[in-house]
């Protein structure tokens, strides 16, 4: 029976931990699922768009992905961190669909490392925290970085994930994430210095 006491549990679920939301979802709680959906839809949408480069395709794949999660909720394992799980399984889900649709297989993305993150000028803030990055052709230099470095950059600074979470998504250890990010930032700085010399 529903008890009428003022426990604001139903309305403040977004403040509760990942662990609890995930557990409620596994029990079929649609409210918990909606909280999860609202929190991750925008992030996964942008992530999917970067991989597929097609807006309506990304939209459809996300509908299918979340439906898949809900339908298989009882078989999901227990989780304390939702973000890395969702990013990783969505990436795999998306790649599976792309490969299935791609009959002539000229664009084989079955190898995850081939995913190429491209950055556009509109996505990058004009005023950067690191002053040296201001007023440079940042997207061009960024896009020239190795693919793994770009993926790490994207997950860290665009999706706002923690290094620990990125490690799980990219299937490498914590230190490798730090190294990838550090190498990327370092070569950005060097490239910018060189460009400034010539301009």
């Amino acid at each position, binding site marked *: 029976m529903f008890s009428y006491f003022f426990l604001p549990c139903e309305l403040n679920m977004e403040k509760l931990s990942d662990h609890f939301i995930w557990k409620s979802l596994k029990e079929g709680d649609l409210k918990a699922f909606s909280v999860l959906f609202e929190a991750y839809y925008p992030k996964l949408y942008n992530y999917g768009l970067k991989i597929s480069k097609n807006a309506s395709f990304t939209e459809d794949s996300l509908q299918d992905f979340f439906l898949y999660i809900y339908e298989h909720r009882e078989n999901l394992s227990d989780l304390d961190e939702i973000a890395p799980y969702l990013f990783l399984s969505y990436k795999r889900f998306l790649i599976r669909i792309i490969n299935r649709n791609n009959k002539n297989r000229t664009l084989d993305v079955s190898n995850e490392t081939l995913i190429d993150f491209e950055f556009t000028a509109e996505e990058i803030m004009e005023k950067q925290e690191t002053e040296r990055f201001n007023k440079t052709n940042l997207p061009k230099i960024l896009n020239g970085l190795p693919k793994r470095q770009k993926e790490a950059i994207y997950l860290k600074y665009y999706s706002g994930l923690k290094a620990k979470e990125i490690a799980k998504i990219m299937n490498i250890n914590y230190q490798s994430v730090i190294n990838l*990010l550090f190498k990327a930032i370092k070569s950005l700085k060097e490239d910018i210095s060189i460009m400034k010399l010539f301009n």
Partner: protein
Amino acid sequence: MTKKKYNHINHFLEDKSFNNWVYQKNATDINFWDVWIENNPERKDLVEKARDLITGISFKRNLVSKEKVSLEWNKLQATIKEKQIKPKRKVIFLKQITAAASVLLLIIASFYFLNRNPLITHKTNFGETLKIKLLDGSDVNLNSNSSISYYTNDSRKVWLSGEAFFQVDKKENTNAKFFVLTDDLSVEVYGTTFNVNTKKEKTAVFLEEGNIWLSLKNGETKKMKPGNFLSYSSKKNKVLEDTNIYNSTLKTSWKDGTLLFENLSLAKAMGKIEESYGYTIIFKDSKSKNTLITGAVPLTNLNICIKAIEKSTGVTITKKNNTLIISKK
């Protein structure tokens, strides 16, 4: 600001006070690190590396709008519901046949014996809600102090006064429309779920899923999408509200016998109680009017409802004849 040894880049990255220093956030942290860097010149390189990693690159994070997310959620919810209903379809189908047969019988009977269609009316009192299954299989939840009427030969055209939540079955073979008529407008649908409220001299429509068309009394038509909430008054000849609602349960929880309040002032919450139970509300001190209230109260049990509100806001509510008097403890 622990006395950790900062000899590895990770020590800096994971340190909250160091992060504060990078973003120049907390005066104590800024001060600490300024001094620390001055005293540890050999770590200058490491500090700079860590700072670069923390600031990184600033993206505009082209996030998806709230409207878009709520639209996509409604889409997903509809798919989930559809999948859950499917296995039961066969049973419903049989019911529909019997329903259709009984409609036919009624029509024939009315032609032969009455030569007119009887008008059926369902009515609820204060503090009472009613679930009705219409002859075409559609479900209606009628809120307190409300009524709907329809002719037996056409239960897909109903007149509403008060508030009701509709779950209309789609008639796929005939594409027959379903109409809800109020003093202000008519709602036109094929198959969907929505809420209509005609209390307070206006009609408010909230669409949970599907698409509906509204024909306002002033001749205007409007298409509504899931999550849209629109209210119109023919008296004022004006659309009063036209927004999106993300927490649909706030508008439709009454059909499960519950009123939900989310950060609502006590004055507004008591307004809802007034509507549902038909009691006049009197505030003895105006201060408690602004107390915010969040939670759920029952629609059909005034005593529990009063107790819950008293408990959460700290006011005393006394029942006297047809009034509820609210005073501070």
